[in-house]
């Protein structure tokens, strides 16, 4: 019993790495331009489809394909921001919400037309093999999820904290007008931030494809995961976002174990609503980086 619970918690921790990464993308966009980017989940799933339906069948090895997906998604995120989403900014909260929601609808249904509603997944040895850790067994792919998610968080924190680009992004997020006085073009920063966000989404999409099956509508599910992770972790804190991902994944796995597989998501939703009732500011204070 104890071992079983430990195994669930360990699996939750590891899967939480992927969920944290999913939340990170939403956090980046909200942190820089205060937009809740409703198409984020669909960009993740777009990356997964690009990998599984276009690149891998064409004979590209999975790792090389992943290396192609990430810059391509950076470009898509950048271009969407520069030519579509960016034009809706500065007129209140409604326009960017309608625009990103519209993009979500378009991406989701283009995927449906192009790749049908069939379940997809990335066939690899990662998903079928397991790793033994002191009497516990976890799927290898979940270890990869966690390691890659954590690495992305570390890279992101380093870029934001230590580089000129990171300083410019943070300055723009603080006060876009004053950033302009320094010679920073906020629109350029927003496009770069949206590109980085989409690139983290691409990494998440590759992991998603390796971890489980997905459908065109999985984009909505991923957006809600990202949203929940961010709400639980505290708006605006990347480290909190990551911890939120772990909590959410644990809630899903415990719910699935205790109530049955169809209760995984609903348990996680209930935990999020509970956090919202008890601690609406999230689990970590906003001041954390």
């Amino acid at each position, binding site marked *: 019993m104890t071992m079983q619970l430990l195994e669930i918690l360990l699996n939750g921790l590891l899967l939480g790495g992927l969920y944290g990464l999913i939340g990170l993308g939403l956090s980046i966009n909200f942190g820089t331009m205060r937009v*809740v980017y409703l198409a984020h989940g669909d960009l993740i799933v777009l990356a997964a489809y690009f990998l599984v339906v276009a690149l891998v069948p064409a004979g590209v090895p999975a790792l090389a394909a992943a290396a192609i997906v990430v810059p391509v998604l950076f470009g898509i995120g950048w271009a969407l921001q520069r030519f579509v989403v960016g034009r809706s900014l500065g007129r209140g*909260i409604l326009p960017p919400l309608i625009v990103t*929601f*519209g993009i*979500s*609808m378009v991406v989701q249904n283009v995927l*449906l037309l192009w790749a049908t509603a069939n379940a997809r997944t990335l066939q690899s040895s990662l998903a079928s093999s397991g790793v033994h850790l002191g009497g516990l067994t976890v799927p290898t792919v979940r270890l990869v999820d966690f390691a890659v998610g954590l690495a992305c968080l570390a890279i992101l924190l380093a870029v934001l904290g230590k580089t000129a680009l990171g300083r410019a992004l943070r300055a723009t997020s603080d006060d876009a007008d004053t950033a302009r006085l320094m010679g920073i073009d906020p629109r350029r920063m927003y496009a770069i931030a949206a590109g980085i966000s989409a690139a983290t989404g691409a990494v998440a999409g590759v992991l998603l494809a390796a971890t489980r099956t997905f459908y065109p509508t999985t984009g909505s599910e991923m957006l809600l995961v990202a949203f929940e992770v961010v709400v639980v972790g505290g708006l605006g804190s990347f480290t909190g976002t990551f911890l939120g991902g772990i909590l959410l994944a644990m809630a899903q796995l415990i719910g699935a174990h205790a109530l049955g597989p*169809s209760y995984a998501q609903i348990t996680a*939703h209930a935990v999020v*609503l509970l956090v919202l009732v008890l601690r609406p500011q999230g689990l970590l204070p906003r001041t954390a980086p």
Partner: protein
Amino acid sequence: MTDARTARRIRAAIAAALVLGLVSCPAWGGDSARTTLIVFAYHAALAQMWNLLAGYAGLVTFGQQLFIGLGGYTLAVGCERFGLGVPAAFALAAVVTGGLAVPVGALTFRLKGGYFAVGSWLVAEMFRLGFGNWGFVNHASGMFVRPARSVDPWLIYYVAVGLLLAMVGLVIATLRSRAGLALMAIRDAEDAAAGLGVHVWRVKLLAFVVAAVGTGLVAALITVQTPFIQPDAAFSIEWSAEISFMAVVGGLGTVEGPILGAAIYVVLQQKLGGSGAIHLIVLGAVSVIVMLVAPGGIAGLVRDRLGWTLVPIERRPPVRADRAP
């Protein structure tokens, strides 16, 4: 620019023609006109309720499918499980959706702006999954509403038109009242409105409850017409795509906008076959384009070009001719 009296006459004539046309439909329309107009009326009513929230109260939500599902299921469960008559179950839908809107609003209002939009979506998603797991409502396979089969389609038609007219009337009356002023103050500057003594939270909750009841009643009527309900369809995010499309394309923050939007929606639906991927791609793409090119929608374009609105709500001070532009 048309002068005030002519404008009033044109408005009255258009409104009278629309109402007369709708009410007299049995005299000139057949079954297909009736079906089309029912679809038009309930979409226009749904969009009107969303407009009350997003266009006037500053509450942009993608979670109204919660009240669509709840209203529909209240009717279905009332008829099928509790043996209520269709009218009683219909009335119960208003009570249930309105009653549930209070805790849902209290909870989701803790989220601001875009996070509120997604938070309300999340609550709807929870209900979709919950109903899908609930044996009492037949899990995800859904329920037939047998008593609804005997309802006269023309009765459904008149209730649909009546609901639409009532909601339009309610929105106009609300907006011209003090509550309407408070709503628009909140939308434009929430903190300033609070500073002026507006009970922001209470006014927003009131709008949220009113929209929930209106949406729930429409959903109950849809369920009478179908007469079948299933969680994946009833609580689907696609409702939000349709509703926001109509309000945005017609013109947010205007009373005529959602009605125009619903008319366009119905035409599009007939051209594109009603559902499926292409339909949703068009809705999404058109919403994006309208938001970028003409954020005021059709009503906004008409106002900018002709200086004229069908239903004036804004109480602008009269523009004096001697003031320099």
